[in-house]
């Protein structure tokens, strides 16, 4: 269902959605983050790319699995802590970030459904915004089977047509949000549809970065496990977690018990983000570490995204948002690494 919404009517639409918890991009000094919208008038979709993707809303950095304690008779008592019912809308989702959620869906779905993830995922509606101009100089979505106006994973896609948005509702939930403020939306005119197609076509041309022949990378990686290539590439790596924590598709986590009191025993079992870039990620209790150096950890990041994930799920585990490139303190550029892998050896 395609509609037109005047930009100035956006706050009125948001006002009609007050039964939902609403997130939208907000600027904090030099960076954009998703913040709760408390007053509909504050909503502003003139933003670039957020520091962290909406992954942090669906898969928060800290999740409480359950609370535990022992009662007076020393019997264990465990209390389930499934996320509360809290219907949520995220405005201003970039197509790459929405696509990323379809990839984490694969990981947290399948044979074993992660109840925490899916509780949040199923109650969150994603309102996307097409990237008429690339929000970052490091965008490369076209190279990884994405596009600046991709609808994948979104419930609604907005495209900026100057003083109005072209609104494409893509799911039942999307239609539901439009129906909550029916009088604000008008049918598109023939010219609007034309403008939309033109803007979408132009937006693709504006993306400067690309990886050529990425298809050659996964088979190439298979033969590069022992290559000294990784030592060279990882020389400048600092072993921080930026590339993976900022990544919209990285999903690894750690589980710890946080004990608040020993007598009587009370505490919580907590899931937090973890990253293959930390040395303790693979450290065994014996003291052996199968990924002992930076080279093996960089190899893991690249192989997971461009070989293992491709084999397992027939998708690259990367949506071309460019955050890992922008934020790497030492300029490690995943595009450059993949170019070198593709051209490596015979």
């Amino acid at each position, binding site marked *: 269902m395609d509609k037109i919404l005047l930009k100035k009517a956006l706050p009125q639409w948001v006002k009609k959605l007050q039964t939902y918890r609403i997130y939208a991009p907000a600027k904090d000094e030099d960076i954009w983050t998703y913040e709760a919208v408390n007053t509909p008038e504050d909503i502003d979709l003139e933003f670039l790319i957020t520091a962290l993707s909406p992954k942090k809303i669906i898969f928060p950095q800290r999740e409480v699995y359950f609370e535990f304690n022992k009662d007076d008779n020393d019997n264990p008592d465990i209390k389930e802590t499934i996320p509360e019912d809290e219907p949520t809308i995220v405005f201003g989702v970039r197509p790459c970030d929405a696509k990323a959620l379809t990839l984490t869906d694969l990981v947290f779905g399948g044979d074993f459904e992660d109840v925490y993830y899916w509780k949040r995922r199923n109650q969150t509606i994603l309102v996307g915004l097409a990237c008429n101009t690339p929000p970052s*100089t490091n965008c490369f979505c076209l190279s990884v089977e994405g596009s600046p106006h991709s609808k994948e994973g979104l419930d609604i896609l907005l495209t900026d047509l100057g003083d109005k948005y072209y609104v494409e509702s893509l799911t039942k939930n999307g239609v539901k949000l439009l129906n909550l403020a029916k009088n604000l939306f008008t049918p598109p005119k023939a010219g609007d549809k034309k403008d939309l197609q033109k803007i979408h076509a132009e937006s693709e041309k504006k993306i400067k970065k690309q990886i050529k022949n990425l298809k050659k990378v996964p088979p190439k990686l298979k033969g590069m496990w022992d290559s000294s290539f990784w030592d060279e590439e990882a020389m400048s790596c600092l072993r921080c977690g*930026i590339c993976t924590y900022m990544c919209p598709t990285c999903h690894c986590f750690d589980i710890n018990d*946080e004990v608040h009191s020993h007598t009587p025993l009370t505490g919580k079992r907590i899931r937090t983000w973890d990253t293959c870039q930390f040395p303790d990620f693979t*450290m065994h209790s014996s*003291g052996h570490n199968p990924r002992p150096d930076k080279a093996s950890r960089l190899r893991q990041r690249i192989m997971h995204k461009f070989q293992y994930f491709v084999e397992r799920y027939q998708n690259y585990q990367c949506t071309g948002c460019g955050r890992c490139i922008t934020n790497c303190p*030492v300029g490690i550029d995943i595009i450059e690494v993949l170019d070198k892998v593709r051209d490596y050896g015979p």
Partner: protein
Amino acid sequence: MVNVEDLRKEAKRILKEGKVKYVIGYERGQNGLMPKPAFIKDPEDVDRLIWNPTCVHNLTKFLVDEKKRKAGEKKPDERPVGIVVKGCDSRAIIVLLQEKYINREDVHILGISCEQTGVIDEKKLANKLKGKKAENIELDEKGNFVISVQGGTIKVPAEELLAERCLECRANYPVVYDLLLGDKTKKKVEEPFKSLEKMESLSEKERWAFWTEQLAKCIRCYACRSVCPMCYCDECVVDTINFAVTADTTASEKAGKIKWVEKSPVPSENFVYHMVRAMHLAGRCIDCGECERVCPLDIPLRFLNKKLEKEAKELFGYDAGFDPDEPSLVSSFKDEDPEDFIR
């Protein structure tokens, strides 16, 4: 004036003569104007080396890496590594020498004076460029940065682009080196702790509110720790398991590892992490500003370290990273040390 050719010539010489294993310097990055660390092994590659006001990184962290790498090798190459340092970076080497983490003969220092300027702040530059792409940046005689962009140039007074630390720098040329490029002209800095004034004027309550808001943003990627040359511990309090584990470590020793900080990125734990780091850097931090530069969420970490630098100066007359023969602040005692704050 620094001529990059002199740097390349010396790098070529020491590589050719086999005096060093490799040279750590700066090279052009893939990503616009900002450079990236370069590791040059082949004397024929020295032309990759660059020097300009975008060379922000403190490369001395790679000396820590080198030492750790060597420790894992059965027959390590004992030759030194060559490294390009600015004034601030050279002071990090002094601290590593003072603490006997590295030896002087482990490192061949190619020092470069920032002369009258310093390095630029990438975020300040981005704000000036307003989406334009910078191709080159140079300093003119009048103290302006001249930025070449497509179809013209932008002229900006140096102070508006320099990194905050450079505006308060007390060592704009290297204090230890094997080769020095550029003049040892001292830049005049009248108020080395000016940036702290605003924070110091706040009440305790306001400061608490400020830091609560700032540290709530922390995602514990530990980039601030990872980039810091002073954070060289084999085992850090925030790591979840004990890196000092060997085959002889007993199960009860492993189980008895104290958990100082939970992994949850909640304000209480984030505070512990950043406070522990700040305290461990007191009298050691040389204000290279890297922790703040690398933070992906823009937490103003430099305030914490600058404050402790000021305390060390005011209470003990101590300046970190100037004299390799002076004992480090926390491992020395003088009769005249103040003790009125001990309660």
